């Protein structure tokens, strides 16, 4: 026992217990009441957002960027008017001025804000603050959305600062309000996407050296996107008055773009959250749900697009992007570890139907492979049914041959084959060494490129470049074979679809064999202690519960 037992010293705790509300006796002023109201309202916000906003307002980076933005806005107002004078009194000058303001806005919004979002999360991990954050009640998704929210808040501040200038361009005539809104809106959307991507990049590695490399790459990428979007934005501003705002297709195509942008932002946020979540968490299911939503969006919008354009080429386009998408996503998913923690097993589906339909959303390389293949195959079936129905009903846009069908079938088979081979290689390597998620992705890319390059190279070597024509020898060359199929040239060589189809069946069968143990997992009972705790948390009034779920805080009452 310590000396504390016999001679209790006056302590902070006793003091705090004896008079914890001493400030409450003073009558609060109007300003402090306003402060308290704001403080109460801020409790509805993400704590990270509140903290970052407080930090940002005091940070040198924000002060410099904001000051520069204002200074540049003012400078362009003066310089632009001077350059446009004296014509500005009688000729429309809004377009010219808006381009200048766009560039003033684009630099902070498209480069500084996304890079700050990246640094904000990367710095948490580098400075050791992330660990303290990760053991709070905040979930990894809250952490990421808080960071993204902070980035969006900064964008809003920059937009607000430049709003009078942009309003001024409308008064100068020459540019309509829709075009201004259109450019600003897509600049905002691009910035949000880049910030979300920046957060993903920040979670890729903890190594300081790699963070430096990634930050340079990200900066280059941001500059490239900024230049690309700026060229587009300037073209839009110039052609502003000819934008087809009155047409339905304009709005529906924009709606499609926006829905995809939103889905990708959600995907990026969930990826970043998964990367920083606790190791025993389920990092896959939510991501797969978002991927499936994207598949549904793609199917819906492409069907609409095909029906509107009445072009049978759309059926090929329908399959091209999902083929690339599912291959890349599949290459990442086959790198997943199939070991489910007891925590994840508690929420596994129990019913036969649930197990049949939802097992593919569980983490694991086999389930990931099957998930990618099933999505690709289902898309092919949708395209096949649509095409055949259109053909049967002799609708406009119906295909006039079977090249598109063969393209879809082969594209699906190639995804099955190359993803399957990549997975088998990864399974083999994992018998001897630990393999993360990035290596399987590289293996997937390498295998698919090797499948293209090898037969092309061998054929050129044996027969010479001048004789390099498509032959069944190129069956593994998915690029060339798919191009032949899309051009309806493959129907004359039926051996290729047969070989590819048989190979796909073989690879798929082999992969299913190695995926059996992943579907054998069954739900695990929730421990009694967890059930008790859940009951306590739901049952007891929140005001009587401390954050620890116990009544300790009552001891703070005087």
């Amino acid at each position, binding site marked *: 026992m310590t000396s504390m037992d016999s001679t209790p010293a006056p302590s902070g705790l006793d003091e705090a217990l004896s008079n914890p509300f001493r400030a409450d006796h003073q009558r609060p002023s109007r300003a402090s009441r306003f402060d308290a109201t704001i403080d109460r309202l801020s409790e509805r916000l993400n704590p990270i957002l509140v903290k970052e906003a407080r930090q940002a307002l005091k940070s040198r980076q924000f002060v410099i960027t904001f000051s520069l933005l204002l200074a540049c806005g003012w400078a362009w107002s003066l310089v632009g008017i001077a350059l446009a004078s004296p014509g500005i009194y009688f000729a429309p000058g809004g377009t010219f001025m808006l381009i200048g303001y766009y560039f003033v806005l684009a630099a902070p919004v498209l480069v500084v804000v996304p890079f700050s979002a990246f640094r904000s999360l990367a710095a948490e991990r580098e400075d050791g*603050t992330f660990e303290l954050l990760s053991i709070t009640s905040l979930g990894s998704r809250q952490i990421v959305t808080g960071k993204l929210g902070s980035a969006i808040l900064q964008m809003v501040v920059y937009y607000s600062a430049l709003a009078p200038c942009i309003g001024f361009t409308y008064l100068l005539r020459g540019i309509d309000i829709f075009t201004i809104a259109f450019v600003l809106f897509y600049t905002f959307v691009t910035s949000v996407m880049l910030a979300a991507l920046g957060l993903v990049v920040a979670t890729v590695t903890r190594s300081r050296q790699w963070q430096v490399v990634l930050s340079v790459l990200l900066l280059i990428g941001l500059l490239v996107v900024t230049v690309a979007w700026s060229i587009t934005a300037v073209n839009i501003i110039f052609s502003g008055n000819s934008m087809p705002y009155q047409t339905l297709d304009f709005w529906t195509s924009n709606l499609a773009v926006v829905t995809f942008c939103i889905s990708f932002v959600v995907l990026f946020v969930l990826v970043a959250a998964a990367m920083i979540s606790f190791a*025993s968490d389920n990092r896959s299911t939510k991501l797969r749900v978002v991927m499936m939503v994207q598949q549904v969006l793609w199917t819906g919008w492409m069907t609409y697009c095909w029906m509107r354009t009445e072009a049978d080429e759309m059926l090929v386009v329908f399959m091209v992007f999902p083929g690339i998408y599912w291959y890349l996503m599949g290459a990442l998913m086959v790198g997943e570890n199939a070991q489910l923690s007891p925590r994840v097993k*508690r929420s596994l589906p129990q019913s036969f139907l649930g197990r049949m339909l939802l097992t593919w959303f569980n983490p694991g390389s086999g389930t990931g492979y099957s998930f990618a293949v099933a999505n690709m195959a289902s898309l092919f079936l949708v395209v096949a049914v649509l095409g055949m129905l259109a053909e049967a009903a002799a609708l406009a846009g119906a295909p006039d041959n079977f090249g598109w069908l063969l393209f879809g079938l082969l594209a699906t088979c190639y995804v099955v084959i190359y993803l399957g081979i990549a997975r088998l290689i990864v399974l083999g390597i994992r018998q001897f060494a630990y393999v993360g998620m990035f290596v399987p992705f590289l293996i997937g890319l390498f295998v698919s490129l090797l499948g293209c390059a090898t037969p092309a190279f061998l054929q050129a070597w044996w027969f010479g470049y001048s004789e390099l024509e498509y032959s069944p020898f190129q069956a593994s060359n998915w690029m060339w074979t798919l191009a032949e199929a899309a051009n309806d040239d493959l129907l004359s060589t039926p051996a290729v679809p047969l070989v590819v189809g048989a190979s796909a069946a073989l690879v798929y069968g082999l992969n299913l064999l190695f995926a059996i143990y992943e579907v054998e997992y069954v739900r695990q009972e929730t421990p009694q202690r967890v059930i008790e705790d859940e009951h306590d948390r739901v049952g007891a009034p929140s005001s009587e519960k401390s954050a620890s779920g116990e009544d300790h805080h009552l001891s703070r009452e005087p």
Partner: protein
Amino acid sequence: MNDVRPMIMLQRLHRFFDNTRAVDDVSFEVMRGEVFGYIGPNGAGKTTSMRILATLDLPTYGDALVDGFSVINDPDRVRRRLGFMPDAFGTYPNVNCREYLDFFARAYGLRGRERSDALKHVMGFTKLDGLAEKPIRGLSKGMKQRLCLGRSMIHDPSVLILDEPAAGLDPRARIELRQMIRELADHGKTILVSSHILTELAEMCDRVGIIEQGQLLAVGAVEEIQRGHAVLSEVEIRVLENVARLRQWLADRGDIENLVVDGELVRFSHAGDRREQAALLREMVLADFSIAAFGCHVKSLEDVFMHVTQGFVQ
């Protein structure tokens, strides 16, 4: 039910980093309201096991439970009950003490009056009231330690894990920290604390565990460990006369070793516990020796630590 359940329980905890066995089959329990000292040389595995308990790392094998919840399977429930003070921690730029604590209060889900009360309580307890508006990066080491302790207890956790909380503190700050820890334990908090300052741990801990090379070498109350590892106690006697007779008298006993006579002082090693030492003193008085002083050097925690550990580093 709650009172009999250990608040901290390590069950055959293992953590390997390649060929390094940072934690190698460590098991112990800490009951509610107990202060448990975790002692070991640098690289012994203290921080690793504490990080596992704080849900910052996963064990290779085994499990650790906090209030009955597994750190592997229910980290969110563990986090609600646990406050962790790491040996080194980062701080945010452009944030003052109040904002820092307020942020963590919000992050632990405290709202309204509960949050403001928690802030007042923690700032009062850690005596940070006067520094509320001071930027964290301008704080001294001791103040930062206080702030970190405040952060770890902002959500009123029932379990506190303090990794080297006294490192780098001046003597006054260390004494105050020790008092704080004892007070927290008196208020029912369960505390696992590691420190290199063993005398302090001996004073504030109810039980200690000694770890080296990832293995728990001894665990129990300080006195228990002292008894368990007591080879011989050092006894010093001041006798006023008949020194030669006393020397012979002691030499004839079987429980005395290393007998040295230095004038009036007689020093020897005795293989008995305190009760047996008292009996020895009584026998000497009854044998008519003029004993002016009888002192027994009890093995300190440092002695036990040095005796138990080998000084190996992985």
